[in-house]
């Protein structure tokens, strides 16, 4: 047992070696995903139920069409600089705050859209890593050191894994620790989600019943076992932070979980899936390996 604990501790949260190419690809992919999902139309000009920084700052000016267009262009410029890797200890915190401000206004309408949380968490975690790494000997401000690149990967993984872990805590707490035994009732929520999707745009694709819903409700044990598998992946993904192999396995597993939710409920998790592909499946690392660019840099 002692040996097992020692082994667990030794392999917990290692700091991986990140090559310049992998770091650059991860930034380019992240910037691309953030850009892709930026709203084109201005957000509302009201904040009836302020959340986060909207409690202290009036963000409604962002909803004015002319202001929003300038703000959007500024965000895009920040994304370009972030992707280039220039002055990350300055650019990343500014980008994170600017991104969070925009989605704070969008989420201050009396309901929460959770689609963008994962991107905000990635930028926020990486900004903290960049600020944490702001030390005189850490290398030039203009070019990210190998150490900062390793920390940006681990920070993004830790932020994302925390989000999944929080969801696990909420499931346990809100259900009075009975979630694992009642998870088969999510099949009814699948019907609800389909109906809500239908009434969003009267889209006939969602006018039917989700696949296998009656079977699921007639077989609560197997249905709960299926949903509980997703719960397990969410709970354990945190253990893969920093580990290339485990992160790959959990990244693929979590993407499969999101894909199956999409199949059954019609819910989309594009942001989560792309960020999992970048930081857990580690597509940038795999590309860098394929190109033979995995230099043995010591994280300094």
């Amino acid at each position, binding site marked *: 047992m002692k040996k097992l604990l020692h082994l667990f501790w030794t392999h917990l949260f290692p700091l991986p070696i990140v090559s310049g190419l992998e770091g650059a690809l991860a930034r380019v992919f992240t910037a691309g995903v953030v850009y892709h999902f930026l709203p084109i139309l201005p957000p509302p000009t009201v904040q009836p*139920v302020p959340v986060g920084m909207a409690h202290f700052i009036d963000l409604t000016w962002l909803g004015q069409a002319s202001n929003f267009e300038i703000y959007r262009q500024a965000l895009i410029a920040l994304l370009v600089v972030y992707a280039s890797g220039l002055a990350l200890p300055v650019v990343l915190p500014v980008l994170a705050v600017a991104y969070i401000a925009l989605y704070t206004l969008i989420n201050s309408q009396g309901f929460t859209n959770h689609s963008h949380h994962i991107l905000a968490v990635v930028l926020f975690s990486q900004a903290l890593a960049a600020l944490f790494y702001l030390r005189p000997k850490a290398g030039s401000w203009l070019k990210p050191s190998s150490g900062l690149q390793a920390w940006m990967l681990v920070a993004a993984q*830790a932020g994302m894994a925390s989000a999944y872990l929080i969801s696990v805590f909420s499931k346990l707490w809100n259900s009075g620790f009975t979630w694992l035994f009642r998870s088969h009732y999510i099949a009814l929520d699948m019907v609800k989600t389909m109906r809500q999707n239908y009434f969003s745009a009267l889209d006939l694709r969602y006018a039917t019943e989700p696949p296998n819903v009656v079977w699921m409700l007639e077989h609560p044990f197997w249905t709960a076992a299926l949903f509980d598998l997703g719960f397990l992946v969410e709970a354990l993904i945190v253990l893969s932070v920093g580990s290339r192999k485990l992160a790959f396995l959990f990244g693929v597993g979590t993407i499969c979980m999101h894909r199956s939710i999409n199949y059954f409920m019609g819910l989309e998790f594009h942001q989560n899936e792309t960020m999992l592909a970048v930081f857990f499946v580690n597509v940038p690392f795999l590309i860098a390996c394929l190109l033979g660019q995995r230099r043995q840099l010591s994280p300094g």
Partner: protein
Amino acid sequence: MLSSKVILLIAIPVFCALSLVLKENFPFSHYPMYSDPDPVSAYYHLEDAAGKALPLTQLTGVRGPNLGKILRKRLSDQAKKLDVGVKSLPREAVEGVARDTLAYLRTQAKHNKQVLPEKLRIMFTTIQFADGKVEEKREVFFTE
């Protein structure tokens, strides 16, 4: 210098704890979706006075699931204000919340350069599984 292990062992629990305490304060969230599976599920949708369903997102930019989120949040805030449970809210308080929500939807429709019908109603549907079938029961939640 602290090791990556120690930093993450501090940072992850702190971030989780903050998120659970701050709840829905972007970028923090306690991700409450599907956290309390229940034998009865429910949703809201919008209709005109004649009972014709309206495409909420096309008209207001607000997605279908968010109508329920808005109503539940406002009803819960109102219940807290009156120091009662949501189910014990007086009818006039519920109607006030529904009226404010429709006013908000009209503002959003205007922002989207759309116009909502003069008279609207909010429908409430419950879903449950009984006798080997998924049953949906629909009722008028509020009508203008």
